[in-house]
């Protein structure tokens, strides 16, 4: 296994320490239980946004702690949901009196651990479940869709609303709205390598791709022969648009997300493939985000996310944000 590590057991703590030291102006990292918290305390009380999940998806979530986005993030072990005490400690640390809003990606492990965290918590709190991945069929009899790259859009927009002093209820309602307007789907060319395992999670032929893949190296909807970028995009967008059913002339945010091992050049090429299709369908890309934001360690591949925009989402997308990995207007 080829990684910059000293010892498999220390990866997380060493990496978090480096992360804290590289971002001393924005955040601090607390250990045992581990969480990342925004350094600047809000002037007026505001709803505190807390997210978290297994590590290995960096910059998600820690990279989005800061003004205009998250108040805290709870990093679990690699691909393992964080533990309830992390959420409880983070909440007590960042609470400023207006309640806590947890933003949780829809995985059994995350849901259960966040629930146990809120069980322990004495603060008013609400939870938004992000489940933007259309690769998975949503049925009331199953766990439902996964939360993937759309999470960043929920975190950014709700983070902005919270800064305005909105109530916990308003933040939750808006976050659920943004989640509903958002759909994603991805494809992987290679497997990631979990450091503790030391080898790729799955084997895949040199001409194969895993279609409708998640962000943990778990298998996707199907295994297929590699296709052209245009063909892949057409399939991904097909599923996304079928879910979102955008109107004619719908304005959207197009987010091309890399899983970690794919060069930016290819992500921009995917953007181009997507735009060609969206243009044909009279869907207007009025905001865009391209890069490695919700990764799966070193996995090659990427995902497309679309959010249907309205004035409120646009406003809270455009507003100032100052985090390690998303920053503008400040």
């Amino acid at each position, binding site marked *: 296994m080829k990684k910059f590590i000293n010892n498999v057991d220390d990866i997380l703590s060493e990496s978090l320490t480096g992360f804290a030291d590289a971002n001393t102006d924005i955040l601090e990292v607390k250990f045992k239980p581990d969480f990342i918290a925004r350094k600047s305390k809000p002037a007026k009380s505001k709803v505190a946004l807390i997210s978290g999940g297994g590590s290995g998806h960096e910059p998600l979530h820690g990279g989005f702690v800061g003004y205009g986005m998250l108040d805290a993030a709870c990093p679990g*072990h690699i*691909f393992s949901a964080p*533990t309830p005490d992390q959420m409880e400690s983070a909440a007590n640390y960042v609470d400023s009196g207006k309640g806590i809003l947890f933003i949780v990606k829809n995985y*059994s*492990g995350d849901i259960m651990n966040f629930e146990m965290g809120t069980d322990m918590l004495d603060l008013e709190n609400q939870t938004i479940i992000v489940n933007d991945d259309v690769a*998975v069929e949503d049925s009331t009899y*199953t766990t439902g869709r996964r939360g993937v790259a759309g999470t960043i859009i929920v975190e950014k927009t709700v983070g902005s609303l919270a800064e305005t002093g909105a109530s916990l209820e308003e933040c939750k309602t808006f976050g659920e709205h943004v989640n509903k307007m958002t759909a994603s789907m991805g494809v992987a060319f290679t497997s990631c390598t979990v450091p503790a395992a030391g080898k790729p999670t*799955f084997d895949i032929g040199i001409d194969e791709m895993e279609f409708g893949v998640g962000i943990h190296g*778990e298998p996707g*909807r199907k295994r297929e022969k590699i296709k052209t970028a245009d063909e892949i995009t057409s399939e991904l967008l097909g599923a996304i648009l079928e879910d979102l059913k955008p109107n004619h002339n719908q304005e959207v945010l197009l987010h091309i997300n890399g899983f970690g091992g794919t060069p930016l050049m290819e992500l921009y090429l995917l953007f181009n493939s997507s735009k060609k299709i969206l243009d044909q369908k009279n869907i207007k890309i009025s905001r865009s985000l391209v890069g490695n934001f919700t990764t799966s360690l070193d996995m090659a591949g990427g995902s497309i996310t679309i959010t249907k925009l309205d004035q409120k989402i646009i406003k809270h997308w455009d507003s100032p944000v100052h985090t390690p990995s998303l920053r503008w207007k400040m």
Partner: protein
Amino acid sequence: MNAEKIFNNLNQIKLSIDEHQREIEKLDQEIGDGDHIFNIQRGIKESLDLKDKLIGQDPDQVLKEIGMKVMTTVGGSSGALFATLLINMSKKYNSELTNQKNIASMFTEGVEAMKKRGKADLGEKTMLDVFIPVSIELQKLSDHEDVKYIAKKIKEVAKNGMLSTEDLIATKGRASYLGERSKGHIDPGARSSQLAIEAICNTIIKT
């Protein structure tokens, strides 16, 4: 039941899990995300480290503390679920019952809590396909006096439960994203749970 016995069982569980490490790792790589083995090994190690502190304490206290340790160090689905099991088992501890009845009632309580926590039931291709039949069987056998007989029976039930997951289509947990593709693989959580139960049963059978 006492602290020493609990840690002794934990030691046996550790040996069995370590022995089947590669198999469990592979199962979660096939239909999950590959972290299950590391999660449970971390949980076992952290729990064993409590031994010096807990030895001599009441069994319910020991179970609760181990449950809390699992809750705060494991993470993932299995951390939440095993912690839920242990913490809720400890709540029902009643030293006035026979050992059999005590364990049956504790276990039933723990498994019911897991079902709630996981919003899951039998046949969803999870560790509950081991725990639910085991808790039912424990209840059934709780009037029985021969603990070795009970242990043999439970071992069998656990194994059948584990094996039953192979043909199921997962509807809970990470494997559920695979739909049809989840078929033909044993659930990693079911396998590790069955190995743990088997390790305890074997200890009873052998003494």
